[in-house]
């Protein structure tokens, strides 16, 4: 061991954490706090700010956006879970070839730009989109179905964008489940369904919770997909924030709504932090 006197700061690599902390402080934390504080101070003193916050939160536009946001995020979380669970399970049991093939089908959309993924569903779902072209061409319907610019469109688009996060998180948890438990249960006479419900699913619950949390967190802050695929009445909170800056130039309003969205996100992230290993985020 080196003597104490010889220990220069650089001898401990932990010191190398400082550039990143400084970088994020300057480029991320300071701008957010600055924006929130400066925009709120435009309102006036503490009592005026409190009054304005109460007024904003009880306004119809904000309450309805908050309800829409949570409702859509909840549905998207459930959809990704139901669709993704069997796929993640398949990844753990398939042979190497099947594993690679299925993983490829997950990874390609995962790393494709969100705007491109949203656009591809607009091409499919639009009034004159490919699905309506095919349905009308085959004589199944005469009038195009309203698949885009409504909640249905948002749900399809967001589920598609967030599905890979769910699958990869579930897979990371399922990979750790010892297959001999399921074999033991079945050897002892459990039906496959019983063994799944009472042995496998409880063991995978950790992945279900992590996956649901990360998808919900990302969904409540979603902007691009709902802005392009939703209708006039499907306004999510992130869209309202963007509009109040871009169109209304209402910085205090944007700050109050950002504060609410940020608080929701941070509470959920704190839970995520407690239940999972953050290093495994995004199923890396």
């Amino acid at each position, binding site marked *: 061991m080196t003597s104490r006197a010889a220990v220069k700061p*650089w001898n*401990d690599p*932990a*010191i*190398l*954490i400082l*550039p*990143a*902390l400084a*970088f*994020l402080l300057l*480029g*991320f934390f300071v701008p*957010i706090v*600055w924006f*929130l504080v*400066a925009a709120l101070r435009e309102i006036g003193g503490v009592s005026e700010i409190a009054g304005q916050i109460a007024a904003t939160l009880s306004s119809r536009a904000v309450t309805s956006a908050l309800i829409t946001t949570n409702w859509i995020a909840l549905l998207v979380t459930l959809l990704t879970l139901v*669709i993704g669970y*069997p*796929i993640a399970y*398949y990844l753990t*049991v398939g*042979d190497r070839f099947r594993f690679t*093939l*299925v993983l490829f*089908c*997950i990874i*390609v959309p995962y*790393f*494709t*730009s*969100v*705007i*491109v993924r949203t*656009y*591809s*569903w*607009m*091409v*499919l779902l639009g009034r004159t989109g*490919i699905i309506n072209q095919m349905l009308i061409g085959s004589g199944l319907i005469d009038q195009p179905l309203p698949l885009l610019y409504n909640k249905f469109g948002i749900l399809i688009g967001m589920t*598609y964008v967030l*599905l890979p996060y769910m699958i990869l998180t579930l897979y990371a948890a399922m990979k750790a489940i010892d*297959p001999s438990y399921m074999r033991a249960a079945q050897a002892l006479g459990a039906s496959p369904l019983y063994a799944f419900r009472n042995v496998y699913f409880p063991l995978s619950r950790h992945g279900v919770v992590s996956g649901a949390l990360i998808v919900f*967190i990302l969904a409540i*802050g979603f*902007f691009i997909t709902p802005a392009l695929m939703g209708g006039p009445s499907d306004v999510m909170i*992130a869209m309202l924030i*963007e509009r109040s*800056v871009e169109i209304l130039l209402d910085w205090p309003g*944007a700050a109050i709504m950002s504060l609410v969205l*940020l608080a929701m996100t941070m509470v959920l*992230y704190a839970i995520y*932090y407690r239940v999972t*290993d*953050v*290093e495994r*985020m*995004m199923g*890396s």
Partner: protein
Amino acid sequence: MERSIPAWLTTYVVFACIGLLAPIVIVCVVSFGGEGYVRFPPSDYSLKWFNAFFGDSRWRQSLVSSTLIALIATVIATGIGFITAYALVRGEMRARKLILSLLLMPIIVPTVITAIAMYFLTAKMGLVGNMLWIGFCHAVVALPVVLLILLSALQGVDVNLERAALSLGASRTRVFFKVVVPIALPGVLSAALFAFLASFDELVISLFLAGARAQTLPVRIWNSLHLEIEPVVAAAATFLIGITGIVLLVDGGVRRLRARAGSQDRG
């Protein structure tokens, strides 16, 4: 050991995989269509939408902006990300998990909030449309991506190699540049590729910070989508998909090299 996979599960996964890839494949096919509107399958194929894409100076300009911004973001995010990952893997710190969770926050905080907060300061400093600054801001959201990749890459580096070099009298700095960097190089390359992709594909921050001068490719696509779904957007989208494809392909090659180097070490 192999477990029997029920037929319904295989069938389901096949359909799910088709559902996952189909939208992307269809956009690519549509972009090669010869009609004046989006149609699938196209009745004839042509390159006219790619000609329209590369022939339009505004699309070309957005391509240049995107590339420059992504290069700046890549250098910053990979540089900082590498030393940070090294600190997290080799350093001794009590609040490691807490620090990591702070470093990952840019992908957790809704991008709209980050973008507006950055815009608030950027406008005050008169930096709207400044590509160097946009690259810096993109690096903030690319850093978590880089970090997650490098953490898993560096965990695969044998600490004994560094200990050996240190015990033979090499300084920490020398060990870092002569041992750690060369071994971790493939991981750094992967991280750089995905940092580039993260910035190249980024939309929300660019939407606020780009102004009229530095419109990136995703911003141009966003603006055209508000007008109509013109097929030239399909060509732009196909171009972005192509970039993703190249990144994944090169990354796959890098990973294979890394795996081969690893097996040679052991063999």
